């Protein structure tokens, strides 16, 4: 009876999911309710988890609850700790959920909600979740080894080298793009800048409280910090209305860029002083709270989506970023569907906490589903806006025009009516002077989020507070990623340089600290400066570059996974990782081709350099030409690396399948768990 009920329930979930996806895919010409997206996502995740992840767990990975994990075998109370699966789930989700799943889907909404939504669902269920799950399990079976080490052992030295280089490249580009998003969100915004500036004394206070008053009570002090941040948001309104304060906190993009570069260098070079750790905790607290609030707000309000399913910009003429829906929608969505960066976390701290192999399914596959759900929320937040407003916020002045009148006229001529009055009223409602040309995705997301929150809680009168809460939320945790990412990159470079000259590898030797910090900050600072000075909006070309680098790392992770699956004699199921790998290769190669060689100067770096060369020379022309050529060279290097890893992997597969090489996986030997007896 129970089995029959279960079968009928799953059939109902399948039918409901199919109906919801059908409505999303087929409905044209009239707005749909956001609840359809929520229902489609819930059903797809439920079906994917129940059936697809179970198929992978039993048929391919053969998860063994009796096999002791490294957390049990190597327990040391520090890195290796047997931990409750839900606790590991929370830990893993907090590490993988960054600004990517929020910003990427907002930018990709220029194609309409349909391409982004379909890719977020299919990409997560068939690619992203699978990658995170299998890499986590393979790392658990190898004493928690990192992706780079597994790539070196299973594919060869080239795989290891490419994984290492890709990580550095992603970090550098990501940090540059992330910093640019913060600059675009805070420029000419005294309220936002004041609130973010206030997080520094708040963090100092939290640090003192933690050290002197209540040592170790992080949760308690983070809650206190959260309340103080809310007060800082409220105080920002006063600062923006006070002429003296407003003039101090109204900063132009280049000034903000310099401040952020200085902050990044200080965060990397100085010892971890009172400020950094408390900021990290504060940002985590705000992040988890806001994501939960947004989810509740969307379900409670179930707003109408005003963006059409498909816009005319699928042809590649989009103002937010140029390029056709294929491949650029799939590059832009990034972490909401699949992220190579997750493979680093799945082979980092998480495998050292897993108590049983069977728990890798909920942690690896399940946490990525939760991240994908965050991307669905971002799509909804962007698409609840009137399309004209969405495009006015996200389009750079170089595309739509410098003034409010020309911008609204251009956007209205595309079939998305908007007036200068609408934009002025919206800017006034959220406490900004203007919302035109606020590129980067963060301000549009903040407006969408404020729209949802204000309708659920407090009404239009508190829209400005919610908007600045959203801006603060994004800026705060992007800044946390900036300082954490800069330090991670610095350590990686120091590790590598230590092989050449030993003192350079010492993380406490100040000449090395200063030199490597300057190297990392200089690298991402270059991309930030390039973005600030780019007349086409910077994010236009930088975000696809980040997407390509991130997908490259996912390609390496899937190459490692496929190689191990073949070596495990599960070749007939290799399509589980081979299919997403093939898709990613198609996307990455096509996108790279366009970014380097496309004759459209808004898409191709070299075409843009040629146009600049042919046009009137200004003081910035030579630098912009150099930037474009450098971006083209960087993209070419990335794509050559993909090709190298692929060739190495295919060579391995052929050698194993033809019997020329023994299929030997580098797993740790089986040890029977003691936890099974303890738990019964």
């Amino acid at each position: 009876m129970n089995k029959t009920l279960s079968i009928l329930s799953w059939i109902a979930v399948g039918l409901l999911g199919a109906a919801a996806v059908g409505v999303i895919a087929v409905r044209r010409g009239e707005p749909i309710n956001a609840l359809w997206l929520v229902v489609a996502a819930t059903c797809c995740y439920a079906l994917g988890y129940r059936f697809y992840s179970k198929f992978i767990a039993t048929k391919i990975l053969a998860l063994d609850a009796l096999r002791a994990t490294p957390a049990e075998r190597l327990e040391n109370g520090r890195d290796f700790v047997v931990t409750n699966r839900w606790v590991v789930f929370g830990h893993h989700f907090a590490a993988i959920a960054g600004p990517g799943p929020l910003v990427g889907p907002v930018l990709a909404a220029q194609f309409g909600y349909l391409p982004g939504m379909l890719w977020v669902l299919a990409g997560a269920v068939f690619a992203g979740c699978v990658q995170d799950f299998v890499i986590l399990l393979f790392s658990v079976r190898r004493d928690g080894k990192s992706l780079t080490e597994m790539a070196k052992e299973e594919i060869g030295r080239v795989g290891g080298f490419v994984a290492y280089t890709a990580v550095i490249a992603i970090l550098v580009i990501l940090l540059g793009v992330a910093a640019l998003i913060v600059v675009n969100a805070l420029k000419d915004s005294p309220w936002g800048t004041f609130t973010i500036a206030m997080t520094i004394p708040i963090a100092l206070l939290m640090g003192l409280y933690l050290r002197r008053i209540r040592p170790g009570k992080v949760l308690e002090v983070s809650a206190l910090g959260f309340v103080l941040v809310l007060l800082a948001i409220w105080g920002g309104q006063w600062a923006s209305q006070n002429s003296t304060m407003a003039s101090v906190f109204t900063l132009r993009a280049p000034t903000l860029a310099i401040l952020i570069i200085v902050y990044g260098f200080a965060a990397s070079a100085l010892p971890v002083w009172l400020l950094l750790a408390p900021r990290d905790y504060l940002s985590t607290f705000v992040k988890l709270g806001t994501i939960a609030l947004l989810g509740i707000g969307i379900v409670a309000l179930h707003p109408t989506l005003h963006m059409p399913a498909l816009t005319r910009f699928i042809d590649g003429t989009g103002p937010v970023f140029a390029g056709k829906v294929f491949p650029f929608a799939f590059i832009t969505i990034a972490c909401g569907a699949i992220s190579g960066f997750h493979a680093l976390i799945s082979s980092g701290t998480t495998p050292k906490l897993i108590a049983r192999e069977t728990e890798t399914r909920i942690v690896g596959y399940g946490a990525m589903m939760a991240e994908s759900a965050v991307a669905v929320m971002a799509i909804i937040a962007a698409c609840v806006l009137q399309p004209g407003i969405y495009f006015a916020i996200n389009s750079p002045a170089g595309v739509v025009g410098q003034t409010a009148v020309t911008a609204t006229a251009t956007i209205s001529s595309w079939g998305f009516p908007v007036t200068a009055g609408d934009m002025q009223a919206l800017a006034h409602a959220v406490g900004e002077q203007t919302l035109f040309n606020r590129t980067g995705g963060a301000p549009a997301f903040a407006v969408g989020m404020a729209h949802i929150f204000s309708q659920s809680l407090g009404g239009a009168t508190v829209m400005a507070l919610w908007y600045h809460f959203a801006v603060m939320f994004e800026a705060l945790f992007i800044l946390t990623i900036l300082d954490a990412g800069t330090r991670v990159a610095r350590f990686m470079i120091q590790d590598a340089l230590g092989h050449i000259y030993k003192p350079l590898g010492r993380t406490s030797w100040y000449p090395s600290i200063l030199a490597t910090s300057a190297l990392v900050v200089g690298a991402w600072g270059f991309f930030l400066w390039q973005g600030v000075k780019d007349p086409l909006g910077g994010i236009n070309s930088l975000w696809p570059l980040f997407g390509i680098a991130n997908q490259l790392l996912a390609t390496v992770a899937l190459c490692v996974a496929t190689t191990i699956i073949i070596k495990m004699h599960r070749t007939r199921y290799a399509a589980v990782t081979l299919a997403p790998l093939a898709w990613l290769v198609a996307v990455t190669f096509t996108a790279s081709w366009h970014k380097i060689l496309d004759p459209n100067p808004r898409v191709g770096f070299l075409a843009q350099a040629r146009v600049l060369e042919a046009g009137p020379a200004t003081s910035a022309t030579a630098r912009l030409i150099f930037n474009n050529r450098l971006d083209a060279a960087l993209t070419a290097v990335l794509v050559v690396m993909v090709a190298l890893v692929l060739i190495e992997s295919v060579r391995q597969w052929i050698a194993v399948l033809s019997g020329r090489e023994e299929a030997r996986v580098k797993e740790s030997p089986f040890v029977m768990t003691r936890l099974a007896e303890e738990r019964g």
Partner: protein
Amino acid sequence: MSRVVEVVRIVLATLREIFDEAAYERFLRRSQMMSSTEAYAAFRQEFEAAKARRPKCC
């Protein structure tokens, strides 16, 4: 009721793990120290080196 208590317990444990309170407790157990300003400073010193190498995703 017991199910609700269990959920609350897990949520709190998750937050304590994310916010390193659980790591601090393990440190105190391992080093057989009582919680104090000095103990917390020693914990941060030991912990930061590992934490700074931990990547965070985008």
